[in-house]
């Protein structure tokens, strides 16, 4: 059962603005409040860094029975490792390994509850994996300029919707190029303990 109390973002103390990207409902929280209302499309189109940590929630499932369990719960699974498919409200399911999956969705979405119930019994061959990574959103046409200062592989060549496990600013991250048509956006998962460091680093680069 996922708790009623909302999750605190590891960079809660650095946030004080809110926006949404395009038609999406999920709240993107920002470090700086926008003086004249939420950022217009132009601003979003250019470049900004946002936090989804408290507006999303994750759970992982691992083990020989992971796939069958999720399917039995009506979760559609990606076929290839590192592939993702849409799930829940603006959420996704990613395949991390042959026997491991991670699900992320908006915090408001209760779609996890039945899963959690199924997992809480912890039957053999099925392991619930806690996932508390921070989720950042690096958005805008200049996103690749930022990437090129922290990431040693060419992110502009990565297929949208494919998860890339690599290093950004010398910390391990999972980076997903969002399959969004209207704007270039990267979803970045980083260990909660390193969230503040990475946020500060990306912020200074963006300037």
């Amino acid at each position, binding site marked *: 059962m996922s708790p009623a*109390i909302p999750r605190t973002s590891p960079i809660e103390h650095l946030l004080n603005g809110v926006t949404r990207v395009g038609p999406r409902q999920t709240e993107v929280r920002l470090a700086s409040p926008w003086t004249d209302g939420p950022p217009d499309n132009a601003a979003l189109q250019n470049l900004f860094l946002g936090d989804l*940590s408290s507006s999303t929630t994750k759970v992982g499932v691992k083990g020989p029975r992971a796939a069958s369990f999720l399917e039995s719960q009506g979760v559609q699974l990606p076929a290839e490792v590192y592939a993702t498919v849409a799930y829940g409200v603006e959420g996704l399911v990613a395949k991390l390994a042959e026997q491991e999956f991670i699900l992320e969705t908006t915090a408001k979405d209760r779609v996890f509850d039945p899963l959690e119930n199924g997992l809480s019994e912890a039957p053999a*061959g099925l392991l619930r*994996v806690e996932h508390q990574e921070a989720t950042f959103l690096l958005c805008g046409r200049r996103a690749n300029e930022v990437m*090129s200062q922290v990431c040693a592989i060419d992110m502009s060549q990565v297929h949208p919707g494919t998860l890339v496990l690599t290093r950004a600013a010398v910390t391990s991250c999972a980076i997903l190029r969002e399959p969004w048509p209207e704007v270039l956006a990267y979803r970045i998962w980083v260990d909660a303990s390193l969230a503040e*460091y990475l946020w500060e680093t990306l912020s200074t680069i963006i300037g």
Partner: protein
Amino acid sequence: MNLRLPPQPGEWIDRSQPISFRFEGCDYQGYCGDLISSALWANGVHMQGRSFKYHRPRGIYSLAGHDANAVFEDETKTNIRGDLVGLRSGMDLRAVNTKGGLHHDRLSIVDRFSKLMPVGFYYKAFHTPRWLFPHYEKQIRQIAGLGAIRAGQTAQLTPKDYGFCQVLVVGAGPSGLSAALAVADQGVDVLLVDEHAHLGGSLTWQSGGDEKSRELCQELVNLAQAHQHITVRTNTQVAGCYADLWVALVDDVRLTKLRAQAMVVASGVIEQPAVFGNNDLPGVMLASAAQRLIHLYAVKPWQQCVALVANSDGYRAVLDLHRAGSSVAAVVDLRDDVGDCRFAAQVHQLGMRVLMGSMIYEAVPGAGKRSIRGAVVCPLGADGRLRENQSQVIDCDGIAMSVGWAPAGAPLYQVGGKFSYDPTVEQLVPREMPDNVFAAGRVRGVFGLDERLTDGRRAGLEVARKLGHGSNELPEKISVTGPAPSHPYPVFRHAKKKNFIDLDEDLHFIDLVNAHQEGFDNIELIKRYSTVGMGPSQGKIANMNSVRVLARLNDKSIDQTGTTTSRPFYQPVSLEHLAGRRFHPLRRTPMHRWHLEAHAEFVHVGSWLRPEYYAVAGQDRETSILQEASHVREYAGLMDVSTLGKIEVAGPDAVSFLERIYTGRFAKQNTGKLRYVLACDEMGVVIDDGIAVRWSDNHFYVTATTSGAADFYREMQRWALIWDMDVQLVDVTGHIAAMNLAGPQSREVLRKLTSVDVSPEGFPFLGVRRGEVAGIPASLMRVGFVGELGYEIHVPAGHAAHVWTEIMRAGASSKIRPFGVEAQRLLRLEKGHLIVGQDTDALTNPYEANMAWAVARKKQFFVGQRTLQVLNERPLTRKLVGVKMAPGYRGPFPEECHLIIEQGEMIGRVTSFAPRSTLGYGLGLVFVHPDWSEAGTKVCICVDRGAKIEAEITSTPFYDPDDLRQK
């Protein structure tokens, strides 16, 4: 004196932007686009610096970034190269390495005593008597070195980025441009890099008045700049090339780490000087330097000069000089025959005086050797020797040297390319290269303009094909004919005057001869002994001549003599550029903010920040720590232990896996219980410890030490593979936060927040439970590390701050206080628990650590077991035991790592010690020889300043020996 010429076609200076600057206290004017050196020369400043050793006046020599004697400093920067750095408004420059300024350099006297200082003289003096050497060295250090470090400067954080391209083309001269265009036309993306501000390479300064070549240059440049598949970067040097075409590009602001799929090197050549008497004085320069002055910076090199030539480039330079109004008093050609050379023909038509088969014997110095006033020219005999008796003096204020070239081959050398000597061009040319690297143009000995264009195109098509584009039939590789562009030996001995091989290091011809005479007769040895090529320009205009000289001395070929390798960097790179924006990842726990607000003093543990203790106003560190500890003993304390490694171990083989990883047993461990675990490596050395929780038959949850966790998890993963075990491992360290609620009051505090039965019966010592704490799903563990009733509470990181705050609130009535790492270290010490890495070292085994109890005897296998069997049969050499000071002891206390001494022998070492404990006396852990490990033994600890103090070996735990309180 203003030597600025009227506007030259294609000049690089911007006359609409005049710049004023100062040099050695005088004001001057230059233009935006000037180099410092070109601006100075334009103002008639020919002496721009002093040499490294003899402090001889020096001026412009190459104007191509290899002039290590025109070096300046200002208030903020040092070792500023005059022919590398562009002129900026407000510059206030001084020459480096002078005593009393450039004009009155007191050290210039050294030049007179040079005979006292033959090559390597410093190896043969100053060392006896021994006590005098420090004095000599001080003097030597003062004299050596160029610029002075500017104290108080702070390094900028420069951006640093990664780049990616299909083809990197190095050098934007004719061959580079045509290579780039050829590749790009195949639809392949090209990054075209040039170290200069403008494209065109030698075409921009080596026109010889040939307007067609200039037009062609502009044409190529326009095409390249307009091409959709070509990206251009100017003012960018290829600083170094590394494995898998990982290339360091450096410009004014940043280092770019470029990954290229293939590379075309069209880096051209570096002009090499001739060696004759006084060939270093201001006024003597490479012809290419004079041409650069004229065409790029519109500066007239001299009023009247003599040109020393040995190739057609020299005659082209003569034409350039002539047009610029530097009258050429004579052309001195080392050769007997100019071959078929249209430039020579034009020179003849102009009726200039040409002396074939001649050489300049020496430059006649002006006052103070700050200029030259003539050239002594001698004919060469059939034997190639100078006929000094037939010498004549030709008046001139400048000498232009055009006797040959050496490849700018650094990128090729650095990717592992091999060069060999090609006698048809008298130049080293690349022979072997990696299959994704290509060379084009003069760097491989192709000099004619049309040939360079064809060769560039050829290289472009080859690289395109390499990447799977374009046709298969390729144009032929250019084969070179005609007179060689370089002279095989432009070096002439001078009986008296210095004739320099290396201007950076002030080495003249005789230095190499002498070094050779002393047995330093191969290129590496002579380089190290004479330091030729070791200076700031890395021998770019010295190495070739030194190789030619050594080859002669050994009567060997150039290839037999060999060249020294060209290591990064091509030009010196600042530490700022290399460092860039430095990344210092720091891990923080979810409760970090809370700790901050509670005035925690943090300590770095691995990459983590942990509260060491919580500062209390007006109270010292030790007291605060002791108070935190006492508080845990009396009431309740809460500690953030989120940094502990946390690993899920699940699957059918979970039990047998853990039995192999740890020294203990798990088969009989009940679910809902936890155990202490100890791990060794294959050497039997203790490497980690923690607890193992059993949730179900096939599901365990283990913890690891903060700094050891990452490595330990990696090793677990590897063993699981090697043993081929059906077990799932997950590192949840960052996902799950943990806190230790300890102290007699802890049960009462916890009861308020959870529905879990926390009664002694319902939740006994070493039990584990799952349930909600403050509304958050949590794992609860009854642990006793600090020796009090205690609970470790593990919750999802995203909810940990909430749980922590709730516990502090609920504990308020029980006087709960947070405690930090230091208090915990004290509390565990009172219980005699060791800390891996502090009380153990890189060779400690469990027997030494007094942990035999944790090593299961009858067990099939665990990592380190076999080694421990061997070690167990040997007498112990040390044992970890407790030590305490007499209650009420006054005087110096031992510190951790003080030694225990008996009859002058080192028999032990303090590993942990607390002068103040909740027990009222100083106590600690020590490694001591077994003969001294009996409880009650008095030992002598040697503390600071040699004082010896007595302490008593004792059994542990010190506190609550029967472990009643934690039960």
